[in-house]
Each structure stands twice: as structure tokens, then as C-alpha cells.
């Protein structure tokens, strides 16, 4: 659901956290809703393979 930046600044954003958990935790502690992605490197860390898979899917 696209929210324009001007609208986002007036409301209360909902976050998706991808990576270092503390970024999301600090937002959650401040009262914001955060969805945590359980991230690990795609295709076993092979970025070329990951990009090929992205093109296929």
C-alpha cells in the first residue's frame, strides 16, 4: 500500500526491518509497529546466483 512521503510524515509509519535487529527493536520500544524479516543471505551468499533467481521468479 503506497503512502506518499507527505502523508507518511503526518501519520504513524509501520516499519519492516531487514537486517540488524536493533534498528527495529528501538522503533518497537518507542511504540511503533515493526515487522521483522528473518533475513539470511540469499542463495547461500552468492549474489550472482541470487540475482539470476530473481530474474527467473
Amino acid at each position, binding site marked *: 500500500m503506497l503512502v506518499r512521503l507527505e502523508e507518511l*510524515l503526518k501519520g504513524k509509519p509501520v516499519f519492516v526491518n*531487514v537486517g540488524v535487529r536493533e534498528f527495529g527493536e528501538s522503533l518497537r520500544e518507542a511504540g511503533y509497529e515493526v515487522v521483522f524479516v528473518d533475513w539470511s543471505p540469499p542463495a547461500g551468499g552468492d549474489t550472482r546466483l541470487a540475482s539470476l533467481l530473481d530474474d527467473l521468479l
Partner: protein
Amino acid sequence: MARRTIVRKNRYFDSVFLMRVARRIAAQPGIRDASALQATEANRKVLIGMGYGDDGRDAEFSASGPNDLVLALEGEKAAVEAVAADPDSWLSQGSVASAGPEPMAREPRSVREAIAGRPDCSVAVISVPGEHAVREARAALREGLHVFLFSSNVSVDDELALKAEARDRGLIVMGPDCGTAFLGGAGVGFANAVRRGPIGIVGSSGTGMQEFSCLVHQAGSGISNGIGTGSRDLADAIGGISTMTGIDALEADPATKVISLLCKPPGKGVTARLVERLRRCAKPIVLCPLGAEPDSFQGVDRPAGLPGSGVGGEVRTASTIDEAVGLALAAVSAEEAVPPREDASLQDIASARIGDMRPAQRYIRGLFAGGTLCYQSQAIFRSAGLVVHSNAPLQGMLGLPDPLESSGSCFVDMGAEIFVKGRPHPMIDASLRMHRLVQEGNDPAVALILLDFILGAISSRDPVGDLLGAIRSAQEAARRRGGHLCVVASVCGTDEDAQGLQAQKRALAEAGVLVFPSNAKAAGFCREVMLALPDRQEVG
């Protein structure tokens, strides 16, 4: 003494979590050293350099890759074996998702899956290793999310492609290398606890935005919203895409009464477009292009009262963050900015400190956690004709051939790529700065140390405490040589931050450190000391 590695295949954890795991293990009796790292090529090299891997005979370690976790342990045999007997128990403590209002049964594995469960998400906060960042940012944009991209090590071409795609979709990419933003009251990334108020920020620098917002808070005002852009946004290659989007958004934002633009000197092509955009903004603008040549924004200053003016409708330029804060406060209070006062007693303090030094002491070493504060300090030195080395040199300053080794007088940005690859930022993990500080203390030519301490939600729980031992050790080393090491610092934070601004300042003052309310003031004091040092050689 035993040394061994333990490899857990296909286990990935972020670097901050792993730093905490390593610290917990290292605190065990009998453990001398512990590392917990993803087995990237760089990290494996570091571990091999520390003597792990058994000269290639540790087959499991040799076969490990970036998707695998390595624990590397050194200590008494029994203590090492005790950890090795159940490594997973160390990896589960604290890694479990903290309970939120509506915890999900299983966390999504991708941005797409996250959006399927929560279609009202609006911002992706991405901090994966740089080589994977573009993929995740693109996925987020395609799901209609704005992107806060903390990751660095993204190419200019990729940055341009992401930002152009965001613009076409009506979105923004804040970053790469974006440290801070304030979105609808939420402090994202390395942000401090500051009150909301009428002052908006568009900033290409995280620590610049932190310093600015904290000084605004301390002056009794507050921040409406803050849009980070990433450090390269105003380069000609990127064209200021996110800066322009940010200015548009704050111009339309009813809570924002004045827009402060904190940036590094823009590219020539972008400067013209930026000046044109700022001149037609309906709200007053405070422009703080740190390190820019004085005439680079000729014609931008627009007096109040011209057509299109909002509250004040003027553009005013500042050369330091402190000055920008003064102008922004004046714009919202309709009072004239008070020029900063020179404190005459500082000269007396400087003279007394110099009097205790040995003649051989002639260099300054600045060790910065905040890249912008390193940059601002150089600008303040340059304004007095002083030249220093730096790994992030401002125009007119000299490069530092090896950032790991100081040379003459130098200012080191310890958040630069070379220091953070595979390890947390120095605002979180002080260990590299601690070692560097001890190293500087052992150099008899050092007269002054300039430090910054950055508080905030994600920063270390005790940034000052992390370095106190190293500060004392450096001071003691100078005393043993019959001299005096003058340690100068500023603390960026508020008393609402968990670390507590006053408590952190007090701890520094008790250790004999001269503490200033801002980096500009601390660097200004150091500049006076350097100018007053007899036979000074700022470069060397």
C-alpha cells in the same frame, strides 16, 4: 592455552548480535578472547591473522562461507571446551524476537512475505551487508515501501537506479549509508530522543542530523520530521534526487515551519538546481553545506518578504551545525539569531594546558565516531589556515595514506568503510577506537586528542565508559614522559537518551577531559590550542 573454531553451517546473524555474543563469551572465566563472525572472506582473513584455522588444517573452518557462523575461542582448555560443548545456547540467548503487541508465529523470510501479512507497512529499514542491500531495497520499492537504507558499500550506479525507481514510484530511498531519519515522530536508525517541534531537516549526514537535532532539543525546541538522503545524494552522479523529494515533502508538511538542509558540498551541476529549488521554497530555509567554499552558494540568500515567502521565506547559510541551529531557532521564533560568544576563559585554559606540555608535543589526533563531525572539525581548522591529514579529507586537507596509522596531525573518521566491514559501527562497538586511542597515547608527539561521543537508541549503552580506560591510559602515558595530554570531547545526545547526557559528560569531566556542548565548540577550542602551540607543526 587452547585456541579453536566452531562452525555452524547455514546460520546467519547480524553483526551487532554477534558482537554481543562474543562479549558474553569473552566475559566467561578462563576465556581470553572470543570472536563470533559470519565467515565472509574478510572475516576469515581476520581470524587467520589472529592465528585461527590451524594453518589451513582446520577443514571445517577452511570450508566455511558467508552463510556460516564461526565462533573463534582462545583461553584455558576447559573454558574453551565448555563453550564448544554447547555453542547453540550462546546463540539463542537474546536472539529470540522480543514480544511485540501482536507477535507473529513465524517471522517472514522476505519483504514480500512481510507485506503479505501487514499490507499497511510503509517504510523498510534495511541494514543487510552492502552486497545484498540493492536486492532488498529494490524488493521493498516494488512492494510500495519507502526505504531507509543504512547499508553502505552500494555502487553509484546502483544508488542512481534505486533512487530513480523510487522517484518514478512516488517513493524515496534514504541512503545508502543513511544513519538517521525522523519520520512522523519516529527516530529511525541512530537517532536521539528529541522532542517534536517546528524544525524540519533534510540531511545527507546521520551524525550531522543527530548533532543538529540534539542542539535544537537542548535549546527547548524540536524536530518535525527529518529526511536522510545518504552521503552521496548531492553528487552530480546522483543529482540530489532524495534531497529534492525531501524538500518537497517538508514544504508540504504542515508541522514544518523551517527547513534545515545539512549537507556536504554539492556537485557543480546540482548546486545550480539546488539554489533554484531553495529560492522558490515557500518556507524559510537554513542551508548548512559543511566544508563548502564561501562563494559556492552565491545568490542563494534570499531576504524575507519576497513573493512566495511562508513564515519568513528566506534562505540563510550557516558554516557550522551550531550556527545552523541558531538560524533555525531564530526562524521559528522570529527573533534574530544570537552569534556565538567567544569565551575568553578558554584562552586561559588553553594556555595552562600548553604550559604543562613538553616541547615535543605538537600534533592533534581526532578520532571520530561521527563522519560529519570529522568533516566539520576539518572545516573549523581550515578556517584558521590549519592543515591536517584525514582519511576523509576536506578540500585543502591532506589524505591519510594508511587510515590505520596516524601521521602528523590527523582527523580519522572511524566509521569509514575500512573500519566497519564485517563489524559494527564505532558508535556501537568502541573496540577499534579504544585501541587507536591507546596507540595515540604512546606517541610522544601528540599534544591533543579530540573525541566525539554519540548517544542514542542504537548506540553503545555507555559510549564514554567504553573509552574511559583508554583515555586514562593515554593521559598516564603522557604523564610518565613528563608531559600533559589534553583530551577534548563533545557529547551528542539529550537527557532523554538512555545513556543520559549529563551523566556521560560528568564521567568525562571527572577523568580530566575538557567537555564542550558541541563538536564545533570542541574543535574550535582545539584550533585555538594548535594556533597557540609554540613551533607547532600541524601536518608533520
